[in-house]
């Protein structure tokens, strides 16, 4: 019943951007995929401070194979930052050896080692609409980390987005996922 705190224990993920970049939906998709389609436990929380209006916005997800007691992200294993202020604010919270993903057109990391960058907004424009940049990031995150399965991720998208935007969102997800797997030489 109790949660392990070893490397087999909960994975903490923080996705941070500014209001309108879709970080809340990304967190929701991640948690829903794990919880409903990957037979894992997941808790999704978000910043509800006054700064959530128009400014910085963050989505926090904890995923575990065991029941999750403490629900909050304290030291993310995976940190995604989609603009500069989010990078500056949260970079130091990343667990040593953790995965850092940034929107490379919007975040300058000044030589930060082991950064995985992708130009998600440009990729989304190529696909058709800039608004799905967050789903490109979602695909990249899933491909890069394997924290949830690709199948569960796609089911979560299908169950969440409006049916008429499903194909667009699926393309966005696939583009991000493909970029991650090409980088790692998998698939």
């Amino acid at each position, binding site marked *: 019943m109790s949660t392990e705190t070893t490397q087999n224990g909960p994975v903490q993920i923080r996705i941070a951007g500014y209001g309108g970049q879709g970080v809340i939906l990304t967190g929701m998709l991640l948690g829903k995929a794990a919880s*409903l389609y990957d037979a894992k436990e997941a808790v999704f929380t*978000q910043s*509800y401070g006054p700064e959530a209006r128009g400014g910085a916005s963050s989505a926090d997800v904890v995923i575990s194979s065991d029941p999750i007691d403490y629900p909050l992200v304290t030291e993310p294993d995976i940190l995604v930052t989609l603009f500069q202020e989010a990078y500056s604010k949260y970079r130091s919270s990343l667990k040593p050896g953790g995965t850092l993903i940034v929107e490379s057109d919007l975040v300058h990391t000044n030589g930060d080692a082991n950064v995985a960058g992708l130009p998600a907004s440009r990729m989304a424009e190529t696909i058709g609409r800039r608004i799905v940049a967050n789903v490109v990031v979602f695909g990249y995150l899933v491909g890069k980390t394997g924290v949830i399965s690709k199948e569960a991720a796609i089911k979560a998208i299908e169950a969440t987005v409006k049916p008429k935007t499903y194909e667009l969102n699926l393309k966005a997800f696939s583009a991000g996922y493909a970029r991650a797997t090409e980088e790692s030489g998998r698939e």
Partner: protein
Amino acid sequence: MPGTVSATASTPPRVMTGEHFMVGDHACAEGALAAGLDFFAGYPITPSTEICERLAHRLPQVGGTFVQMEDELGSIAAILGASAAGARTLTATSGPGFSLMMENIGLAAMMEIPCVIVDVMRGSPSTGLPTLVGQADVFQARWGSHGDYGIVAYSPSSPQECFDLTIRAFNVADRLRIPVFVLMDEVIGHMTERVVIPPAQQIPRVDRKRPSHEPGDAVFLPFKADADLIPPMAHAGEGYNVHFTGLTHDERGYPALNAQTHEQLVTRLVNKVAVHAPEAILTEEVDLDDAEVVVVAFGCTARSARRAVAMARQQGVKAGLLRLISLWPFPEERVRDLGRRDAVKRFVVPEINMGQMCREVERLTHLPVQSINRAGGAMITPQSILEVLVS
């Protein structure tokens, strides 16, 4: 559609059977719908607003009535009126609105009108911290309106419990003819987790006791209690001669402003909750069998406490958790029993207030009771509880 207000053409059913990834506030709203909510009146306030939003969308879809009121005084008055006419009624608020409702909560207790009131607790007093967590309304829930009366209050620790306990709140309210509180906290109200909603026919339902007399029967006394101290409820508009008043009233429901009637009535209002306490009380016990240190916690703090107990055990400290699922009635016998055990050496009570439920534990044991407090705005961390457990 799970977790979000659906954009699909078909109207979702009253009971959204299935697995959902759902925020606590929505799970509370869905629990109310599943319980057969007929009428909601409320005034939106953070962090309970999502309950209002969800019901504004969903309740009219399933034939219920949603009213956004002018304020919280109107909200509580409206749900009492609708309940007196036979509806299952709910309002949802946070501390500032809860304070405004106190007068009519006493009226509900006095007139024995069942209703459910959700308070999603935020940093307080006054308007305090609208978007951040608190657990400081727990004594207000018990003692907030003037005078002596009994109520029941539940404190969920997960979105699933927001769903389950809201259903239970309706059943207990109708069974005992009292206001029942669901005291969520901001962390639980705004947390998203799996919520499993069972088939409609598996949702438990306990209805109000109804009069055995026909309407118009002159011998019927609407406030004459049965042996269980609960009077059958005659609704307004059914033909019964019913009179509801906040004044001290006799078995006819008419004002009887004397000491003897008052003694009988108030004693019964207090005792009817006391004698039914065993049906209302809910606790969860974790690792208590050999525990030397007993943590007593509720709401989001119970989640930190569960982690702290596991960490303490890894360090060789025999800790256990008594999780309060019902806050009121307080599980007095359970705490007394734990305090009498040879193994148990002390109690630890973490809560996001300056020390409220710890007083309940203190009055039931001679053992040391250590209080862990923070005023509000953030969860109590597992580490801060662990430090006390291993000290």
